[in-house]
């Protein structure tokens, strides 16, 4: 039986009272998840300066080749450009659609456009809404073509670089590109982009899935 005098209560009873009071007080408050965000421009500037907000084309190629599913790849160009060519597993989102596009603020998001201007602007829009996991594909689709699809694998690679050259050649072929060797035939393949459908060798995960790498 509970004593009326709180001094005679056991520690468990006291803890229960504290929990009940905190629970009752919680009825008054409502933290709004995903609500108001304060934009810290100084913090944004620091992020831009430290260059932690982007991934390189080669990193992205490795992620796709590994079948990683803990990030979302968004193509922020217009629909026609997307139909013409896009990086395998990318989701088409125009700048206008970005505000209503179903994304979670806990997700890692990689944005790309042709160069880097649109993706940088999209990055700002997302950061302003608290999507702290948004990053930019450095150099955009141009870098993807130059570094992944049609990498310049010059013959004068040192022994150390041979392995990485082989890896890059493999990645290039995986995504339907063709490495350029040396300066002899510079810019030969630029004209013909691989078909929109990813090459059969790439096992591209369905991108609508949520990341499952977290949790217990």
């Amino acid at each position, binding site marked *: 039986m509970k004593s009326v005098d709180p001094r005679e209560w056991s520690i468990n009873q006291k803890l229960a009272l504290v929990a009940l009071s905190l629970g*009752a007080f*919680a009825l008054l408050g409502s933290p709004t*998840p995903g609500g108001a965000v304060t934009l810290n421009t100084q913090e944004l500037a620091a992020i831009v300066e430290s260059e932690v907000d982007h991934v390189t084309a080669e990193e992205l190629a490795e992620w796709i080749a590994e079948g990683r599913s803990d990030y979302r790849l968004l193509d922020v160009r217009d629909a026609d450009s997307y139909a013409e060519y896009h990086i395998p597993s990318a989701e088409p989102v125009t700048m206008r659609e970005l505000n209503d596009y179903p994304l979670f603020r806990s997700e890692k998001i990689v944005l790309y456009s042709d160069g880097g201007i649109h993706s940088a602007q999209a990055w700002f829009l997302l950061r302003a809404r608290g999507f*702290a*996991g948004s990053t930019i594909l450095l150099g955009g689709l141009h870098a993807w073509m130059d570094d992944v699809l049609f990498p310049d694998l010059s013959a004068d690679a040192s022994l150390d670089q041979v392995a990485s050259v082989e890896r890059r050649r493999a990645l290039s072929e995986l995504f339907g590109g063709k490495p350029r060797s040396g300066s002899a035939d510079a810019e030969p393949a630029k004209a013909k982009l691989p078909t929109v459908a990813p090459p059969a060798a790439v096992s591209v995960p369905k991108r609508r899935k949520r990341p499952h790498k*977290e949790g217990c």
Partner: protein
Amino acid sequence: MSAPFYKYGLFGDEMSLILAAVIGIGFGFFLERAGFGSSKKLVAQFYFTDMAVFKVMFSAIVTAMLGLFYLSWAGLVDLSMVFVPPTYWLPQLVGGLVLGFGFIIGGYCPGTSLVGVATGRLDALAFCGGVFGGIFAYGEAYPAIASFVKSTPMDRITLDEWLGVSMGAIVFAVVLVAVLGFWGATTVERKLARREVEASV
């Protein structure tokens, strides 16, 4: 400064793994100190003779819930960035029942079996073998059951969203259920203890 620290890039992958190890060891330590390295103690829960599992776990839930609620209210934690596993109600219901049966039969849950192994219990070691065997079998069978695992999706959903009430109301309800549960559990324990005494006389 705001949490979750990892999501805000306060530290990288390596540091997050180190911290996970530290927190995991702490978790194991307190499970052991609560007596959960022993399958006898754990199984007593299901005979209502020792409600320690219920009390410890519910205390942890209430503590974490109140902490997260008030920290996010104070603007120190961004709950929208905290990972919430997506709900697939039917497969998760079935999985919960499978885990529950395993808990009753084997005397451990996955976490406590590791605690039992750490303190050298052979039954825990056997249980762990079963856990890893089960994980392996699940992985091998996954292509066949994938459509079931992904059925009845409800996406990322929490109780307050599902019931359409405020988060504070859920917090209050859970605390109320916990306190009533503690009171009920203690009453049941006393009753059963008395009956045992009477039976032995």
